């Protein structure tokens, strides 16, 4: 099987290039793309990429695979079409080396939404209790692993990565807005009420298309707008 992989070392290379690799893969193999990359790294130890849990939980190996963002560790090589598998780093973020990108911008947006529970009430004797119904509202939100596949597939995030929170951050923002134990709903909404942070989402839905966990940031963004509208009318 043939691979074409993005190579760039800012310290030595003037510009990025695509390098071809070939790997023997047995027919009927259930190899994942991450396994293939690890095998290619044995051929060429200079190839750099991130990986950790190798089972779609840590979110380290988000890559642009044949033009679509996804996690290498849960992408079967057998599912990849075309003569050559084209692997690039996540688009829109600065490349540190080869397939490794600088996620600082992405984390800055995540930090902005205050991704932690804030409760200003008197602390309960043991713990903040939540009904099963209220807990169910967090399903489809808390599962985000911050792999950045969605935000780096979003044109609005490409154009304004410093101002638009991005699908991942907004999904997390809604996770705390809808949490029955959080008391900062109003100030969280106020923080998002500018022309960029939330409203730069134009409903392109690339985020929904690429999310390796099957989450729906566009729906969460719609819910945040509804909450804002209910407060603002």
């Amino acid at each position, binding site marked *: 099987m043939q691979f074409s992989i993005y190579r760039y070392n800012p310290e030595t290379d003037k510009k990025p290039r695509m390098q071809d690799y070939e790997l023997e893969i047995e027919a009927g193999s259930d190899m994942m793309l991450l396994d293939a990359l690890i095998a290619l790294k044995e051929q060429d130890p200079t190839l750099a990429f991130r990986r950790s849990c190798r089972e779609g939980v840590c979110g380290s190996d988000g890559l642009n695979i044949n033009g679509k963002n996804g996690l290498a560790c849960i992408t079967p090589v057998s599912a990849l079409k075309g003569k050559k598998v084209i692997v690039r780093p996540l688009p829109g973020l600065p490349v540190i080396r080869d397939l490794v990108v600088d996620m600082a911008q992405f984390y800055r947006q995540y930090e902005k939404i205050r991704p932690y529970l804030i409760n200003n009430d008197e602390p309960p004797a043991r713990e903040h209790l939540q009904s099963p119904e209220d807990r169910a509202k967090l399903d489809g939100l808390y599962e985000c692993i911050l792999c950045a596949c969605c935000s780096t597939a979003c044109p*609005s995030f490409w*154009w*304004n990565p410093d*101002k638009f929170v991005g699908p991942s951050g907004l999904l997390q923002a809604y996770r705390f807005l809808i949490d029955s134990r959080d008391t900062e709903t109003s100030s969280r909404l*106020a*923080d*998002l*009420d*500018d*022309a*960029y*942070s*939330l*409203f*730069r989402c134009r409903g392109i839905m690339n985020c929904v298309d690429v999310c390796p966990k099957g989450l729906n940031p566009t729906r969460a963004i719609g819910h945040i*707008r509804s909450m*804002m*509208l209910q407060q*603002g009318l």
Partner: protein
Amino acid sequence: MVTSATSFGRSGLHDWVIQRVTAVVLAAYVIYLAAFVFSAESLEFIVWQGLFGKLWFKIFSLLALASLCFHAWIGMWIVSTDYIKPTGIRMVFQVLVILACFAFLIWGAQIFWSV
């Protein structure tokens, strides 16, 4: 919270709501006008004057034009903040759009009320 100086409103929610309300007004105006054109037996001067001479239609027309101007201000501002990166060119573009919207609105009002 990100600040913006030349956007239509000061709040993202405000611009978002205005964008949607003006879109509905524009759709209603276009549908009404299209229905009028297709249902009219003839489209002579007197028929047009009969339509545009009515006070309620003058108000409807002005409302549609105002909606177009606000919609364009918000929309073009968003396009410019996505695609025009140099601050100087972006500012000139945004100011030109705002001035054009204002000029077209006054000009249009004058036309509607001269019928």
